[in-house]
């Protein structure tokens, strides 16, 4: 069953892409992540032009984060004030990122930049998560009490000026690290085609020390709005959002996510984190492999401006 994509300008097999959306949706539902870091490389490896893959994936992340964000909001797990501060940074980062995508495409270094971003960020996050989950599992086996949050500890972050009170998070910290974090995530979202949950969640927990239940809701809130903005920016700047492809991925993704969420409930937190870390590292290695191993074709073609 083939369908011709209007923006990617190529025919694709709908069933394959539905299946891809479903498989990634399943994993993202199970681990509670957006799945952009899996979907974007998958799309690129299946022949979708990288810029279109990234623009389209932003739209798909909107779909996969909206229901979660609403559910969290109803459970009063969203710190709106912190979300808005994050969002301010996020939109700045996103505008910057979309602009850089444009520049890099003209220079012919876009794919290299994306690959490096993937290797670096997935490598760091994956390794940290792997170590943390292994430690937790070992401690759990030896019977020690595990606590992720260690309140009362202060770092340099708490010494910065421009302090704000975030009631729901029970925090009184500077707005600067929050804005910077938002900007980094927005920037990466725009260039890597990811929601950035895998960066923002650990950063909020370990750097800002936001309570875990508020972290998930607030990060979803931020991701929802930043990826919406990114989708619109990519449409305007690069014309690289393929609605047809996005819809195929969404259908597969939202259904897969529901089953994934149920499967995830069967596993312990540290087991989930261990599996997720393994997955993240696999993707990281896969992207790194392409950078390091001599390609079978050294030449590549591209048109002068934009995707056409």
């Amino acid at each position, binding site marked *: 069953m083939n*369908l011709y994509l209007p923006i990617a300008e190529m025919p694709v097999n709908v069933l394959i892409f539905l299946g891809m959306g479903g498989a990634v949706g399943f994993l993202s539902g199970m681990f509670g992540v957006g799945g952009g870091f899996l979907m974007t490389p998958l799309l690129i490896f299946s022949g979708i032009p990288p810029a279109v893959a990234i623009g389209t994936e932003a739209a798909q992340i909107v779909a996969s984060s909206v229901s979660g964000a609403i559910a969290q909001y109803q459970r009063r797990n969203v710190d709106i004030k912190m979300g808005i501060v994050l969002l301010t940074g996020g939109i700045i980062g996103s505008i910057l990122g979309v602009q850089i995508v444009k520049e890099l495409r003209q220079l012919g270094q876009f794919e290299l930049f994306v690959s490096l971003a993937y290797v670096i960020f997935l490598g760091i996050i994956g390794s940290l998560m792997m170590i943390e989950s292994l430690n937790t599992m070992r401690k759990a086996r030896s019977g020690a009490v595990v606590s992720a949050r260690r309140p009362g500890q202060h770092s340099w972050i708490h010494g910065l000026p421009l302090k704000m009170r975030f009631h729901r998070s029970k925090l009184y910290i500077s707005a600067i690290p929050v804005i910077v974090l938002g900007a980094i995530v927005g920037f990466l979202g725009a260039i890597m085609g990811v929601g950035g949950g895998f960066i923002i969640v650990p950063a909020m927990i370990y750097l800002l020390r936001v309570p875990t239940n508020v972290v998930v809701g607030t990060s979803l809130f931020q991701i929802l709005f930043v990826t919406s903005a990114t*989708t619109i920016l990519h449409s305007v700047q690069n014309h690289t959002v393929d609605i047809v492809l996005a819809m195929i991925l969404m259908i597969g993704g939202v259904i897969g996510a529901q089953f994934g969420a149920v499967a995830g409930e069967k596993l312990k937190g540290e087991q989930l984190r261990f599996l997720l870390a393994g997955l993240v590292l696999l993707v990281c290695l896969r992207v790194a492999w392409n950078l390091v191993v001599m390609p079978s074709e050294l030449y590549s*073609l591209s048109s002068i401006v934009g995707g056409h």
Partner: protein
Amino acid sequence: MPGRDQIRQKFRQRFEDANRSIRKIKPQDLRSAMSGRNAAFALGAAVVVILIWVLNTGGNDPDASARRQMGASSPAAIMEEMSKTAMPAEQADPAAPAKKAEPADAQHSALEASVEKTEQEKAERRRAALADRTVQNPNFDESVEVDISTRSVAITSGFSGQRIVVFGAVHNSLQASPQQGLYDVVVVLEGAKSKLISRRKSNVAGLWINTQSVEFESVPSYYTISSTRPIVEISTPRVFDEYGIGFQHIRIEPRAADAAKLGPAELQSFRESIIRLKAGEGLYQRRPTGVEFIGRSLFRTSIDLPANVPIGTVVARTYLFRDAELIAENTAAVELQRQGLEALMHSFAFDYPLLYGMLAVAIAVGAGLAASAVFSRGAH
């Protein structure tokens, strides 16, 4: 007959039972179905998919489907396609409206209609400019006439490539039979030309990075050559160079600034990279025995436009050779244009990008809400 009634009764009973049991399935049933072994199985399947992808390092083959359609052409299919378009005795009237390949959609929106209208007008202008480009060698009596089985190819959401037939006739043919082989015909199909950059990777500190690049001025987006015999047997490279006939002779010129930087051998390897990569995508094709004489003067060749063929005008340049000498030349064109939903969405994305982006977000929000409404009903 009582037997048949009984069977019918039984079937109806079965159908209603099945229907009732389907209706009984609720979202929480689906959730509970995901317990234990099923969840493990689904997880396993997902991991297998990821593993296959991770291990599949070289198998990046987006145009397999395009190549699959390059199968051998059956004569019956070609004749059928040729009969669809009345064969004109003379070069077709350039003012004639381009034939619509699809019946008009019942729900033809105003925007869609206007898009098609302007597209058709553009196509008409291009066709008019191309029409009647008959070139004749004064030393010979023969001339060549040519047309294409269709004037326009509609790129719709179901587009998966299309076969076109280029056919023509040799005027004042001296050939006694098609087997005599007095004439050679070369048909070159060429898409719109555009600037293209070829980049070469080299190893920098262990990473494969684009380092050198050459910009080429006018690269055909699509190029297919079909001839009665391999072209080396037909004429000399000098003629092929002059007319851009054959992969080695396509006029692809590097930008002067880039040409000055590199040696001729390097430039040649960049030039070859374009042809190799385009051929790999199925966009450059060779059919050394694709043109066939049917009668003393009538010839035809069928060409499969691949699914990834770039949108725009494809020009069919036809050359008639006798004894290695080019004696006549003629040109026909086919317009590839987006139609229906495809045209609507593409022009929407490029003409109203802000609205398009907002629509994409709205669809995404709608899909997310719909999914959570469907799946959360009854659960928790």
